[in-house]
Structures are given as C-alpha cells and as structure tokens.
C-alpha cells in the first residue's frame, strides 16, 4: 500500500524531486527517499523515466453500479428564505446534469419556505420538499437522517451543498452515514464525460495548492461549495419542473441535540458574502481607528467592510469581517484591498472577485499579482481622493 521506490531501478537522477508539489522527495546516497506526508498524487511517477516509483493500486476498482443517476442540490433555507448559495449551486448543478444527461433535483427541508418554485426557474427538474413546523429551525439530527433516507431511496450520483455553518456541520455526517466521500469547499466542479466522475477541485495546504479529487467507488459523490464561488445564472421563466411534497416521517428519529435559543447578532450582521462591493483593510491601516477612513469609502460605495486576518486577531474588527482561508470566501463585483499585502491565505478568500483594486505602498506586495487595477502609494492619500472623486459625480 502506498508509495514504494524500486531501489534497483532508481538511478538517483533526481528528476522526481522538483516534481513533488509538496517537496517530500530527497536524494540520499544516490537514491530517492519519500518523507512523510505523501498523498500519492503520482506527480513523481510521471517524472520518473525509470519506472522506479511504484504507487500501489488501491483496492477501489469496483465501479459503482449504474443505478445511481441524477444530480442533487441541498437547498438550504434559513428563516424560510432559500440561501443565495442554493441558486448558485442549482445554476452549476444544471450544467453538470446536462453534461451527464440526467435530471437535476433540489432537496428542501423547512417550513413555509418562500419561492420554492424559483428553484425550478433556476434549473431544477424536480424539487423534493418536506414542509413541517418541526423543520422551521435547523434541526441537525432530523436533517441528517432525512437527507440520508432520501439519498438511499432515490440514489443520486452527485450531491452538492453549500459550505455554510449548518451545511458544514451536517453534510459530513450524511457522508459518514453513507460511508461515501465528501470534498469540502470546492472551487471547481466538472464532469469527466467518459467515466461520469465528478472532478472536484479545491484549494488545500493553506491555499498554496489546488487539488483535483475524485470519489471513484462510492456513491453519491458529495461536495460542499462556499457561497459566491459559482455564479448564479439568470432564471428562465418558462422552465418546467415538479415540486414533489413529502411528509415528514420522523418516527424512529430520536433527536439528541436541541436548539434552545437563537441570539441574533445585529452588530455582526455583515453580509460579506452577499455584497457587490467590498472595501477591505489590512495591516497597512496602521491602527484600528483608521478603519473609519475605509468605512467612509464603503459608505460612498454602498459596500461591505472586510478585513485581513491579523486585524481580527488584534481585535481591530470582529471576526465576521474576516476574508480568507479561515474567514469568508467572497466573490464581489469589486474588491478594494487597502493596505493588504496579500498573504496566500487572504488571496484564497477573495481572488475570484470580478474586479480587484489594490492600494498598497509596497510595489512588490503579492496583492498586485491578483489585482485588476493597482495604485502603488500611501493609502491615506489615495483613499480620501477616491472618496472625493466618487462623491463628485
């Protein structure tokens, strides 16, 4: 199991060493050695001209039966409103289903959910709807059990869900119950037409590396996607579809966790993921009070306020504002980065924005590599000018 080096074949040429994206190979005494941490991606095997790298075939050749068909989107709602990520996933799911020549279904659990028919306009062929007062609030055990039951009954080949706090909490439980694979925070989903496999691409290793992942022998193939990663397409009014209402049969489901209370945090209601424009600040602001300047710019633009991680760590601004690997992934029409150098963890959370404006006094800051427009200079001069010009017509 795993990776082996055939020491008779290895000539110690070292061609494989730079091929390893994780830098795990080393030539010792004219033979290559593999350090711990290998995920068997096979890059070294391709680089070796001597067939010295052996990655043992994994016991997973059993091709799943053809009985699994269809693409499913978990249509999460909160306070009876479908989440915006649901429309993004339905738009993407439509394309996947078209490529696979199969149907797209949305699964919706909740109570008095608004605009369920919109799921059809955005591309769903069927909506499985379970409406019950019991499901008005996120009821983790019931959600987990119901989704598992539906998947077992209808056997979709693909299930995607939003990487929201609730999604990230219960979707892994669904995957574990079904003993199938789940790929978190995908930024790319494509179909390999020949094998019908879902190619799931995601950033890993702190956003330094992209990995494409497959789930070969288990069904369904499951993935979560952060909000704002895929585009919400325009709805089509004439699109036909079915809403299939189902009863909540909660018999036998013993719910262990109970929601006692929900405390809305109004001060922290920063809808960063929903914002069209984000003004974001980094270390270059110098001190917490200087956020006022960015707030002013944000007000002029009707923008939300974002931040890089160090400022949150230092308590200049609260966590819901944090953009990046351990904060939020955003994809606004315009992201204005002020005094942000662009650490890879920050870039991971915002580099897919439609337009990025970078304002920074260091011309070598990595943020300029992802910028659509850049101004090198003092943000305390530039931002007030920008506010002035935006105000005056």
């Amino acid at each position, binding site marked *: 199991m795993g990776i082996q080096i055939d020491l008779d074949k290895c000539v110690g040429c070292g061609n494989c060493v730079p091929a390893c994206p994780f830098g795990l190979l080393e030539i010792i005494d004219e033979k290559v050695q593999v350090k711990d941490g290998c995920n068997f991606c096979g890059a070294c095997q391709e680089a070796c001209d001597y067939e010295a790298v052996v990655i043992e075939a994994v016991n997973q050749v059993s091709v799943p039966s053809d009985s699994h068909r269809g693409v499913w989107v978990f249509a999460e709602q909160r306070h009876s409103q479908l989440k915006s990520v649901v429309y993004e996933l339905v738009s993407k799911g439509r394309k996947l289903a078209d490529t696979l020549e199969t149907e797209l279904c949305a699964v919706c659990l909740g109570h008095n959910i608004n605009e369920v028919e919109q799921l059809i306009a955005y591309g769903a062929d069927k909506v499985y709807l379970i409406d019950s007062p019991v499901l008005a609030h996120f009821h983790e055990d019931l959600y987990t059990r119901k989704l598992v039951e539906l998947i077992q009954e209808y056997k979709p080949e693909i299930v995607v869900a939003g990487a929201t706090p609730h999604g990230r909490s219960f979707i892994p439980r669904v995957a574990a119950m079904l003993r199938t694979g789940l790929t978190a925070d995908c930024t790319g989903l494509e179909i390999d037409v020949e094998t019908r496999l879902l190619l799931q691409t995601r950033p890993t290793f702190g956003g330094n590396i992209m990995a494409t992942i497959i789930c070969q022998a288990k069904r369904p193939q499951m993935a979560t996607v952060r909000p704002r990663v895929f585009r919400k397409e325009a709805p089509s009014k004439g699109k036909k579809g079915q809403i299939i209402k189902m009863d909540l049969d909660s018999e036998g489901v013993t719910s262990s966790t*109970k929601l*006692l209370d929900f405390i809305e945090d109004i001060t922290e209601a920063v809808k960063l993921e929903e914002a069209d424009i984000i003004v974001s600040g980094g270390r270059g602001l110098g001190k917490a009070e200087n956020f006022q300047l960015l707030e002013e710019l944000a007000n002029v633009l009707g923008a939300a306020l974002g931040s890089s991680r160090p400022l949150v760590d230092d308590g200049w601004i609260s966590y819901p504002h944090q953009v990046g690997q351990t904060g939020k992934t955003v994809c606004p029409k315009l992201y204005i980065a002020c005094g942000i150098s662009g650490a890879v963890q920050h870039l991971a959370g915002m580099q897919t924005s439609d337009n990025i404006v970078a304002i920074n006094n260091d011309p070598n800051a990595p943020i300029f590599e992802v910028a659509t427009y850049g101004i090198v200079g003092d943000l305390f001069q530039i931002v007030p000018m920008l506010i002035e010009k935006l105000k005056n017509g």
Partner: protein
Amino acid sequence: MNIVVCLKQVPDTTDIKIDPQTNTLVRQGIKNIVNPFDTYALEEGVRVKERYGGRVTAISMGPAQAEEVLREAIATGADDAVLLSDGAFAGADTLATAYTLARAINKLEQYDVIICGRQTIDGDTGQVGPELAEMLKLSFVAYVSKIDEISNGYMRVKRMIEDGYEVMETPLPAVLTVVKEINVPRLPSLRGLTKAKSAVIPVWTAQELGVDNNMVGLSGSATRVIEIFFPQRVRCGEIFQGELESQVSRLVDKLREATIV
C-alpha cells in the same frame, strides 16, 4: 468527566512559500506545529476538567514524529496521550481518518466529551469532527464558542453561525468542534513540561485497533487526489503610473466605464 481531545500535527502553512523556479513548496525551515485550531480544543478540554474534574486524553493520528504534539498537549494540561501510527494509516481522507479515530476512542472505552478544532490549516476541510461523531453514533455540535454548563448528563453550549449564536443542548457523550473565540490557550507549565518529557506515549497500530486495513489510510479513503497544481495568480492587471491624483481619476473612470460603481 472523561475528555478526549483530537489533535493533528500540521506543517505551518502560514509560512509556506512557493519556489517560482521549480513551482514546488519550499519545505525547508517549515516547522511542524500543532494545528492551531486544535490548541483551543485542548485548552477547552483542560478547562472542562478543571471545572468538573476528570481526565483529558489527547489523541493524534500521524507518523511517529506526531508524538511531539502529544508531548506538547501533556505540557499544557492533558493527562494521557495516545498516538495512532501505522503505515497503513497513510493517505487517509477525512472518512478514513474519522474511522480510525473512532476505533481508537472506542478502545478508550470511557469518554463523555470529545473535542476537536473546527478545521486543520493543511487540509482545511472541517469534516473529521462531524464524521467522527457519526461513526461513534454520538450527538454533535459544530463551531462551539462557549460551554455554558454541564449537568445531569447534558451540556449547554453556544455555537457561532453566520448571523448570531445558537444555544444548543446536547446529551453526553457528545462530540464538539470549537472555534478560536472559545478561549485563550495557556502556555505550558514548568510542571507540565517535566511531565511531558518523561511521559510514555503508547502507540496504537492498525493491529492494536483491530481495524480492517481496507477501512484505513488510502485504501479506506473514498476520495482520492488525482491532480495537484498551483493556483494561477497572475491577472495581468493594470498598475497605474504618474501623479497619484490622476491615477485615482483613471481608476474611477475605469470603474465607471465598466459600470461597477
């Protein structure tokens, strides 16, 4: 109260640079550290012990060197530690990792609370906690920012969600994942360091866990990495030149032309 804390040794990904010549990660000088999110899990475990009594067992799956994170855990308050290490565990995805951890926790027999960090900084999936809960058939609460109370076999916690906090009640035993808002981890004590130095940390292999080799490591993984590549960063953007004032004007013009503002 028997508390189990899961920890992972990870490369400090915040320090990683990419060699532009070879397009590989520069590993040299990159330290292996305790996954930062797991330090909050450990601290919370120790605090629960201090409030309600009991023992904290730190557990980690990884190569032999992952023992380091367990010694650190003992230095900062864990009573016992177990390392799950076996060549057969290598290449595990979250499903196989959760399975292996679940088997080990079952072997511990006594547990009331299992605490994990919200995610790791290398894999970033946040899936092992909830998958572990399901494998152990225990109740689960993610993103816990406060443990309010534990009494009569129940626990009341607050969890962070996008627009506020949910107050949840869960019976024990339960699995929690915690966020960094929950506490400020302590530094190792002198006594802890001495204890850590001499602690004997048992290593449990696949055989000791009695696991089927097809359920662990790469063989037990439902997902597989088929390609690795580096993110394209270069956008070929326009860096304005000239007087600052005119640069700002051009920026505003461009944004207006594109009807962005």
